[in-house]
């Protein structure tokens, strides 16, 4: 048997097993359907995230004036924006790091003052913080704040009292300014007068009508480059941050159960082939025993990869919209998990000397490992001691890798330990399991 034939035989064993897995309704359910149901169900239990692109904004009001208070109230009314107040800027930054809010905005001292001098000042200065990787959200935030600034500007036009104060203040500042030629002073003064007249005229027509975003956009074109709100955003790294939605927790859990399903299905299928006699036919074919086990391993690897890919692709779609922060880390995580759990499958097949043992003890051990490894309660909310204990479970490292691709933002260095464990499990598990495997009843 040459190499091509050997590969052909290995692949046909893998293909045959995938076909058997799909045809075994119970195994197919626990391998493919159950993990999906679990991911969706627990995703909602953990608070979902189905509000799609919703932004939670932290607000620090350092100005503490009526004007700034009004601004915060305005923000609270913006659709699709959740607002949480913080006492100080560092508290808000902390909240970003913990993943509690997506961004934070600081209204500096003198904020209200600068709003009421829109004509003479530089507009409001808002300092913001945002988590990295939230590019779309950053744009959204700047847009919302600018919109809000324009709305306030338009409020000035439509609210005579507010405009009057602003005009008065502008005239007062004009009077204090020494380095202006009388000619110029006259031009500005008459401009202010005409603004006042224009506003009184407009005021009569649509006094009750609230300024809309629409009018804000018109104002932009009328006012050129000038913006009433200047937002400067600074990134706050989300190291050790928590997941952004319930689905970022539940889909890794789904992956755990999917991996468990594959591992059990293939481990048991080897024991089954032995007890049902088909293994005998495989061993009397012109294959080495290595070929046969490799065929099983390839089948297990493919189905592990398949179940993970299905779950992760599903997670990306609405209404779950889980974000993969690092696609490369994600793909690497999936492949590493498949390698690791193929080794776990061989270990199971090697240790379970009978089909009954594989079905009974094997299943029980795998379920316990899956439970402590993050399959039932997310690891990051477990007590430290349990988190440490769960290190014995290969599922824990798989969870870590998958979460690394989703929200832990793993880089190469972060992947070394869990990835190394997966490769070790894959190679070591295969070697040990194969050596211990019994070929006859």
């Amino acid at each position: 048997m040459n190499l091509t034939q050997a590969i052909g035989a290995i692949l046909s064993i893998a293909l045959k097993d995938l076909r058997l897995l799909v045809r075994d309704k119970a195994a197919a359910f626990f391998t493919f359907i159950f993990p999906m149901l679990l991911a969706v169900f627990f995703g909602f239990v953990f608070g979902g995230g189905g509000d799609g692109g919703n932004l939670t904004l932290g607000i620090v009001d350092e100005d503490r004036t009526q004007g700034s208070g009004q601004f915060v109230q305005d923000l609270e009314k913006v659709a699709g924006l959740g607002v949480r107040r913080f006492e100080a800027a560092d508290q808000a930054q902390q909240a970003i790091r913990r993943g509690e809010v997506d961004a934070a905005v600081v209204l500096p001292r003198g904020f209200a003052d600068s709003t009421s001098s829109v004509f003479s000042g530089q507009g409001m200065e808002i300092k913001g913080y945002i988590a990295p990787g939230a590019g779309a959200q950053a744009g959204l935030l700047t847009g919302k704040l600018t919109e809000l600034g324009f709305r306030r500007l338009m409020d000035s036009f439509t609210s005579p009292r507010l405009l009057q104060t602003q005009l008065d203040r502008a005239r007062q500042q004009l009077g204090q300014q020494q380095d202006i030629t009388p000619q110029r002073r006259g031009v500005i003064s008459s401009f202010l007068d005409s603004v006042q007249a224009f506003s009184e005229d407009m005021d009569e027509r649509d006094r009750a009508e609230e300024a809309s975003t629409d009018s804000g956009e018109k104002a932009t074109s009328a006012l050129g480059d000038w913006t009433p709100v200047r937002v400067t955003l600074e990134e706050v790294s989300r190291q050790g941050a928590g997941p952004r939605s319930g689905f970022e927790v539940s889909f890794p859990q789904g992956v755990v159960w999917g991996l468990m399903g594959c591992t059990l299905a293939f481990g048991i299928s080897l024991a089954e082939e032995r007890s049902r006699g088909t293994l005998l036919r495989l061993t009397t074919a012109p294959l080495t025993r290595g070929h046969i086990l490799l065929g099983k391993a390839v089948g297990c690897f493919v189905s592990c990869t398949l179940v993970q890919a299905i779950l992760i692709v599903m997670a990306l779609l609405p209404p779950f919209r889980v974000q993969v922060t690092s696609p490369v880390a994600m793909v690497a995580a999936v492949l590493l998990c498949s390698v690791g759990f193929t080794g776990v499958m061989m270990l199971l097949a090697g240790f379970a000397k009978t089909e009954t043992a594989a079905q009974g003890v094997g299943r029980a051990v795998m379920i316990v490992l899956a439970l402590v490894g993050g399959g039932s309660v997310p690891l990051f909310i477990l007590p430290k001691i349990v988190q440490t204990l769960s290190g014995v479970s290969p599922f824990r490292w798989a969870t870590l890798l998958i979460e690394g691709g989703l929200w832990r933002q793993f880089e190469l260095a972060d992947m070394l330990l869990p990835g190394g464990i997966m490769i070790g499990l894959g190679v070591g598990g295969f070697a040990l399991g194969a050596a211990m495997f019994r070929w006859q009843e």
Partner: protein
Amino acid sequence: MIVLRDLRKSFGPVVAVSGLSLRVEPGEVFGLLGPNGAGKTTTLSMLVGLITPDAGTAEIEGLGSCSRPLVRASLGVAPQALALYDQLSARENLHFFGRLYGLTGTRLRQRVETVLGLVGLSDRGGDRAGTYSGGMKRRLNLAAALVHDPPVLLLDEPTAGVDPQSRASIIDLVRALRAEGRTIIYTTHYMEEAQKVCDRVGIIDRGALLDVGRVDELIARHGGSSVVAVKRGDVEELIETHDPTRTVADVLRASPDVESIRIERPDLETVFLSMTGRRLRD
């Protein structure tokens, strides 16, 4: 063709095969006849390299031991325990087993259809093996041994647990395979089958080969005399003889009041009984 030399195998205290030597000639059907537990399956397992013998060798002449994968390519094995995937159709089963032997494409498809036809399952080929009757599974089990067209066949109790019809068709098939010139080892505990299909038979009991020869040779050596049973009224007289025809003629000439007369010729059952003191099937 197939040579077994002083094969020995024990499982703990149980001696399954104790010093078995055997030579099977090319193109013959060799029967291994013995009761359950005689060591037939263990012998075949050592031949195909599934079990490592404690001592002795088993090989295909000119090719070597079957522990080498390449040598196994020329073997077709129908295990005693049905070895089929219940969730796959007969066609899918055969297709898969054919792939393991390196068959692909049109040749594979042709072989699958050919062997399905040989075992009379063409019209049920698309059904899952799990839905088959015992007889049909047995026939599919045999088909799986034939799909790669091997010159040597090892059939371990190919008629175990089947209905009389399937049994007859399996026996016909084995005869047809023999006519094609294949070398076949056929194990059974049914002496009728051994008598019907085998060129030579080896009597095996408790792991040892007691004697080997053509059926008539074995009977002549160990069968003893025939018995002529003569019934007169309520009395039946049993006469042992080496020439039953002559004895019948003598009896009829001597006494005309015979009600019935019956000849019991020795068969392999008698051979086994005389060699072991036990019957083949208990």
